[in-house]
């Protein structure tokens, strides 16, 4: 045994034990894993949120030194980015200038022209400031940040932004820092506005950059009430020289003292900027993410054969994501701060870690033998794949190790992350995913178990209450047929699970709420942590309260500070180091009257740059192709400068001749100063935003109305108010296709209906009394009544031939006409008959005329049918006697009172022909027992094939009600019949199977088509004519088709399928009655078989099993257990198989996979009849009602009650006709239910 194999065995064993462990204790392991994930992700809390602005860090000015690149054991908590020198030190000189007192001879432009003009003096002062100390002479030229060209795209800014020199910006830049240009400028405001960008601009504008304060705070406007002009001179320094800055500050403060200024000078703020993602970077990023999602999609699509595919896919994604988070968290914990952009490398990390292991694990576990215990399955699946998993992991680690040795820092960092991620991913796979998988497999096995044991654990137990609406006594109904709709709570149970989840989400709007709450929290956090946000405000509040109570940060500084008396204007120290500045100007301040406008200084001026856009500095630097992304700048405390200009001095400053006429009439504008002062663009923006918001709301509202139903959240409220005539509409706005259903009751049988047959247009029913009635399936009119001969004889004791008489039918029919009235026979011929015998003439019109002439127009309504069994003869006789008097002349026969002889003749005329070879006796029968009751009945064309308990097969004319032929060769009772083309297959009680052929012996010269006057538009349809001689020839008899009685017989697509109590299904070819297959697979008697023209064969047995067979090969396609007890009925659609069982359960199976889609628990004893109207509409019979179900959702659409009372008999038989009507028996009545909308759809 080599080392490799031993290793392999060891690994395999270890994985086996691990799998056992995971499957045994799923909950503790999942808890443990979640705890470890959370623990590892905890350090991530310290990472900044995405979307926050620049980060700040404040240090003291005193003793400041540029931070080193490698902080060694620094006890002070400092951010990670605070390393190395900043990009620049920003020194702002905040100038506040006012002309005071305001004289009446002053023009509005005087409010800002002289103060702005002072900027050139100040600039010159700053530029020429020299500080000399022991280290040498320092000037601004040495210290400032030297900039080169502007970016090529910014040519138009060349005139206003400095190039090739110090980065020093001030409002003077508008005039190239030349006093002459300023003086000759006719319109200052126009010059300022000239450079403003057109349209909306979110980032810093040039005006902001040059003035250094937000535009509305500058006071450079005709309408500024305060007449205080504020601007800054911004100097960017590359090196920090405390001495120079200190002397500059002292010098400026000395020159222009700010009396009431209490600005702090102790702190400098370092601002760190994030990387900004532009569109150019976004496109590759989005591409990688798209690829990532495609990868995840294609990977998770491979998960199969599990209970919840999506659950496992989610678990897989969670595994990978949390392993990544864990790796980042662990790296952060151990001091490895990520310098890489997380968003960029994240997709690659996912791809490197991959979902493969997860999929391999799933596949391996799923492919283990199903009959093993779950634990063992997991363990086996794990150990099977252990070697490949370990090998892959080792390979990946090796590759990453190679990557680590590229010695490129970024790649090394990526590799480090990847290694940690791989290890944590392995950990999570082993613990988290395996456990989830075991839970899933267990759930699937439970579902399997449920399927195998007939107990339906997954369904609610059959208990009364809201879940059983049909069992509960129905509410009082105004009409015999009421449409009831179940409560939504019940209907949800039937839905597939994923739909239920979707509906749940839709109903509770969970997703929207979560997103909303998340957004609110996020915004809240952002607002709180923003440098200019709530936290600073809160932190700044106490000193405000203590010191200057009325001052509010955002308040009007002029108003606030004018309250304060400017008493403490300390006398200024005389300046010593002046060179060229005229002292007169400096001394102006004391000359001004103390009551004049005091230039206000507030706390908000201390860090006035906060009021600027946070893109202010990045955009300023970006003009010179200097990026601030992931770098920081240090902002030094501002130097306050106050300029007081006397009123007599203001006109002294050279006024441009045009100044006087610029603001034509400022006075009326002062009436609404605030409005005028405000930036007009602000209003434009507001209006635009409002309009856009309204539009958005309208759009969303429309979208909502389109997408969501009207009664979205009102569960059940609308149902109570729903009036008749309102369409039933459920919570989801889904209106069922069946809109209005009213059953049509066909009455006439005296006893319960035993057999029901239809060929689409005609409907034949046979009751326990042996009476066969033929109905028009379109209108529900009774066409023919064929009474049982035995009963007939008991009343009239006539000759045998009378049993098939035509005229009793007339009597019976008229006796039963309580709804159709009139002349039912006019309508007995439907427009479309199935063209079974295309070459046959149709002679029925002749018969019709015959009948019409005989029928009395005023039919006598018979007494209601009685429940008793054998008194029908008397009833008929009474009907005859009632019938007789009005129409004696219509009947030529004198012996009509007893029985019509014509019918007898008609039958006897034929009987001599058939009697010799068919064993058909025209004479009176010797005994009654050879007739027997009808056990099976089929209807094709207008021939009714009736199989009797005596073994007799009789063919009746459905229209005339005459017996066409009879075959008595078999002795055993016919249990089932199939009538296909011209063949009849009869299954007998003894297990034998007889094949008959119906042959026509047409008398010559009777070739005629149906086409009576008035009905000429009807297409001629072939039919067995009454004049044809029909013989029923036994072609073959399979004596021992089955060992036991045949229970089911179905024929379709040229095949005859029989099911028997001997547990087998046999398939015969109809043409030559040759047995093709004997299908074995059931362990009980066959109770239901379905076959259709597409050769789908499904069989259900007493064992509750349903088998799907391939008719062509005889192989079993699938074999499922779904019912506890007999499968009573089976129907297939194109996609699914529907079965009902004795356990009152309706199961819907996927036809191709044999997986149960869902099941419907019905109430007890609701019958077993099923029918499929279209591919999505299922009909089931219930207790006195029929229910319509949506097959796609398992949703009950409607329940149609057939009678007044709900305790009626169950619907045992249900036929779906071609015209989308259904016929079901309802005790002694037949019920014809139209489904109108479906009919339209079919048309």
């Amino acid at each position, binding site marked *: 045994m080599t080392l490799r194999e031993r290793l392999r065995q060891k690994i395999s064993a270890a994985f086996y034990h691990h799998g056992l462990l995971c499957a045994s204790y799923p909950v503790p392991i999942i808890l443990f894993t979640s705890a470890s994930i959370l623990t590892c992700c905890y350090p991530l809390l310290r990472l900044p949120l995405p979307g926050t602005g620049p980060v700040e860090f404040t240090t003291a000015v005193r003793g400041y030194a540029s931070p080193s690149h490698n902080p060694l054991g620094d006890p002070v908590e400092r951010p990670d980015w605070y390393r190395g020198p900043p990009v620049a030190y920003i020194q702002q000189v905040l100038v506040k200038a006012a002309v005071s007192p305001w004289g009446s001879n002053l023009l509005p432009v005087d409010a800002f022209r002289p103060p702005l003009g002072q900027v050139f003096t100040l600039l010159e002062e700053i530029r020429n400031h020299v500080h000399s100390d022991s280290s040498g002479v320092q000037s601004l030229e040495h210290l400032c940040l030297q900039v080169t060209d502007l*970016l*090529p*795209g910014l040519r138009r800014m060349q005139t206003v932004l400095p190039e090739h020199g110090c980065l020093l910006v001030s409002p003077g830049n508008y005039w190239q820092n030349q006093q002459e240009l300023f003086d000759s400028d006719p319109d200052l405001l126009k010059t300022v506005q000239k450079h403003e960008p057109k349209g909306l601009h979110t980032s810093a504008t040039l005006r902001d950059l040059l003035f250094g304060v937000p535009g509305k705070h500058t006071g450079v406007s005709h309408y500024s009430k305060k007449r205080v002009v504020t601007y800054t001179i911004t100097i960017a320094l590359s090196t920090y020289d405390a001495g120079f800055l200190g002397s500059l500050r002292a010098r400026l403060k000395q020159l222009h003292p700010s009396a009431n200024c209490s600005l702090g000078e102790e702190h400098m703020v370092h601002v760190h900027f994030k990387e900004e993602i*532009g*569109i*150019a*970077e976004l*496109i*590759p990023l989005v*591409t*990688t993410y798209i*690829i*990532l999602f*495609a*990868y995840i999609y*294609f*990977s998770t*699509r*491979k998960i*199969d054969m599990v209970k919840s595919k999506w659950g496992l896919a989610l678990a897989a994604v969670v595994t990978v994501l949390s392993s990544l988070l864990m790796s980042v968290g662990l790296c952060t914990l151990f001091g490895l701060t990520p310098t890489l952009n997380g968003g*960029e490398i994240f*997709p*690659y990390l996912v*791809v*490197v870690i*991959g*979902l493969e292991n997860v999929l391999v694990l799933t596949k391996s576990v799923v492919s283990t033998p199903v009959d093993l215990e779950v634990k063992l399955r997991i363990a086996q699946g794990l150990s099977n794949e252990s070697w490949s998993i370990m090998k892959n992991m080792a390979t990946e680690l090796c*590759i990453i190790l*190679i*990557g680590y040795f*590229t*010695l*490129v820092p*970024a*790649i090394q960092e990526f590799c480090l992350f990847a290694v940690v991620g791989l290890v944590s991913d392995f950990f999570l796979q082993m613990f988290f995913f395996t456990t989830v998988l075991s839970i899933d497999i267990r759930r699937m096995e439970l579902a399997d178990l449920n399927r195998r044991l007939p107990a339906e654990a997954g369904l609610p137990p059959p208990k009364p209450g809201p879940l059983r609406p049909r069992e509960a006594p129905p509410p009082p109904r105004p009409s015999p047929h009421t449409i009831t709709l179940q409560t939504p709570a019940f209907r949800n149970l039937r839905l597939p699970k994923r739909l239920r989840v979707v509906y749940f989400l839709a109903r509770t709007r969970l997703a929207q709420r979560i997103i909303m709450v998340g957004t609110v929290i996020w915004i809240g956090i952002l607002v709180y942590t923003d440098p200019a946000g709530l936290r600073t405000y809160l932190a700044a509040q106490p000193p405000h309260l203590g010191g200057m109570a009325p001052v509010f940060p955002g308040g009007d500084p002029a108003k606030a500070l004018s309250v304060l008396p400017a008493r403490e204007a300390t006398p200024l120290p005389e300046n010593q180091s002046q060179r060229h500045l005229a002292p007169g100007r400096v001394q102006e301040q004391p000359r001004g009257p103390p009551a004049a406008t005091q230039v206000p200084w507030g706390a908000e001026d201390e860090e006035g740059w906060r009021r600027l856009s946070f893109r202010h500095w990045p955009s300023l630097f*970006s003009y010179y*192709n200097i*990026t601030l992304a992931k770098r920081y700048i240090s902002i030094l405390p501002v130097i306050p400068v106050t300029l007081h200009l006397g009123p007599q001095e203001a006109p002294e400053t050279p006024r441009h001749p045009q100044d006087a006429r610029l603001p034509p009439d400022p006075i009326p504008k002062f009436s609404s100063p605030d409005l005028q002062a405000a930036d007009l663009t602000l209003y434009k923006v507001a209006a635009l935003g409002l309009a856009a918001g309204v539009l958005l709301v309208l759009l969303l509202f429309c979208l909502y109305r389109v997408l969501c139903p009207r009664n979205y959240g009102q569960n059940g409220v609308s149902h109570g108010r729903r009036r008749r005539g309102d369409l039933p509409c459920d919570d989801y706005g889904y209106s069922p296709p069946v809109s209005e259903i009213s059953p049509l009751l066909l009455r006439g049988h005296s006893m319960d209906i035993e057999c029901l047959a239809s060929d689409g247009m005609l409907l034949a029913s046979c009751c326990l009394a042996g009476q066969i009635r033929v109905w028009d399936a379109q209108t529900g009119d009774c066409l023919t009544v064929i009474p049982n001969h035995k009963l007939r004889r008991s009343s009239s004791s006539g000759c045998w031939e009378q049993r098939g008489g035509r005229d009793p039918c007339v009597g019976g029919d008229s006796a039963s006409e309580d709804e159709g009235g009139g002349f039912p026979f006019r309508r007995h011929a439907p427009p479309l008959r199935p063209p079974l015998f295309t070459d046959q003439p149709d002679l029925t019109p002749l018969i019709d005329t015959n009948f019409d002439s005989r029928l009395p127009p005023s039919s006598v309504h018979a007494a209601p049918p009685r429940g008793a069994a054998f008194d029908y003869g008397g009833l008929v006789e009474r009907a005859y006697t009632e019938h007789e008097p009005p129409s004696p002349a219509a009947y030529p026969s004198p012996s009509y009172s007893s029985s019509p002889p014509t019918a007898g003749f008609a039958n006897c005329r034929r009987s001599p022909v058939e009697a010799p070879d068919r064993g058909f006796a025209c004479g009176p029968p010797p005994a009654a027992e050879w007739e027997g009751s009808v056990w099976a009945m089929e209807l094709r064309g207008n021939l009714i094939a009736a199989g009797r308990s005596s073994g007799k097969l009789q063919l009746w004319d459905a229209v005339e009600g005459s017996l066409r032929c009879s075959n008595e060769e078999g002795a055993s009772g016919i249990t089932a019949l199939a009538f296909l083309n011209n063949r009849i297959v009869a299954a007998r009680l003894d297990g034998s199977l007889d094949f008959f052929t119906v042959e026509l012996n047409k008398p010559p010269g009777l070739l005629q088509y149906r086409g009576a006057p008035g009905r000429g538009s009807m297409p001629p349809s072939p039919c067995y004519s009454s004049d044809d001689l029909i013989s029923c020839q036994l072609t073959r008899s399979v004596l021992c088709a089955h060992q036991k009685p045949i229970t089911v017989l179905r024929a379709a697509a040229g095949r005859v399928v029989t099911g028997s109590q001997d547990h087998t299904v046999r398939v015969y070819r109809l043409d030559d009655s040759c047995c093709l297959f004997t299908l074995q697979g059931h362990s009980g008697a066959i109770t239901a078989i379905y076959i259709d023209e597409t050769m789908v064969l499904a069989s259900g047995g007493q064992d509750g099993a349903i088998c799907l067979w391939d008719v062509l090969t005889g192989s079993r396609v699938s074999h499922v257990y779904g019912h506890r007890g007999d499968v009573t009925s089976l129907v297939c659609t194109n996609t699914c198989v529907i079965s009902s069982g004795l356990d009152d359960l309706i199961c819907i199976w996927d036809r*191709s996979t044999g997986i149960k889609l869902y099941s419907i628990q019905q109430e007890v004893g609701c019958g077993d009849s099923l029918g499929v109207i279209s591919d999505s509409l299922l009909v089931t019979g219930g207790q006195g009602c029929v229910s319509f179900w949506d097959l796609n959702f398992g949703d009950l659409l409607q329940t149609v009650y057939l009678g007044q009372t709900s305790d009626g008999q169950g619907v045992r038989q249900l036929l779906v006709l071609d015209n989308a009507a259904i016929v079901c028996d309802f005790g002694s009545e037949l019920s014809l239910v139209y489904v109108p909308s479906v009919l339209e759809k079919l048309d």
Partner: protein
Amino acid sequence: MADSTPGGYGSEPGPRPAPGPYISAVTNRTTNLVIRGAMLFSVGVFLALVLNLLQVQRNVTLFPPDVISSIFSSAWWVPPCCGTASALIGLLYPCIDSRLGEPHRFKREWSSVMRCVAVFVGINHASAKVDFANNVQLSLTLAALSVGLWWSFDRSRSGFSLGVVIALLATLATQLLVYNGVFQYTSPDFLYIRSWLPCIFFAGVITMGNIGRQLALLTVMLIS
């Protein structure tokens, strides 16, 4: 979901319905070739644009406002050329596989193809974003990554040799173009580009071959 994509690999054998016009068009040999070529072409053009953007980013720290135009900053014929080349390569790979009689069976599924594309983009990303000490290091790293890509997703000798040949030819062609002045590198560092180019070409060839093989496999499954 799987049904919407033409013949996902999960298509079960069984009675296939009568082919509709779409299926028959896909299974038609010439049409199929054209469809595949078009798909590969579009993928190639898209990748060329995106990767070009990545490369442009490396050389300009900050973008002027007209970013979108920088997508098309290189010569207009470069993306179509890349598209054509990728279509050719993507069709050539399955063709050679069938000629050699050794169909590619290693990790033949879409998730693997997606992974391969992601790694290819990642290699480009790394070459654009990561600062290497010198060009030798860059070349070696990229070469290792490219070979790793081949080992992870291809592992066929034909794929490797074809990739190497095409990469060398493409590099040669590019150099010729540059020497003739038809084309210019945007990068100021000429050596950087030259060390970067062959490896990227190789990785691209492997990726496009992978996609082409997967598409061809789909066709085979559709036709069969």
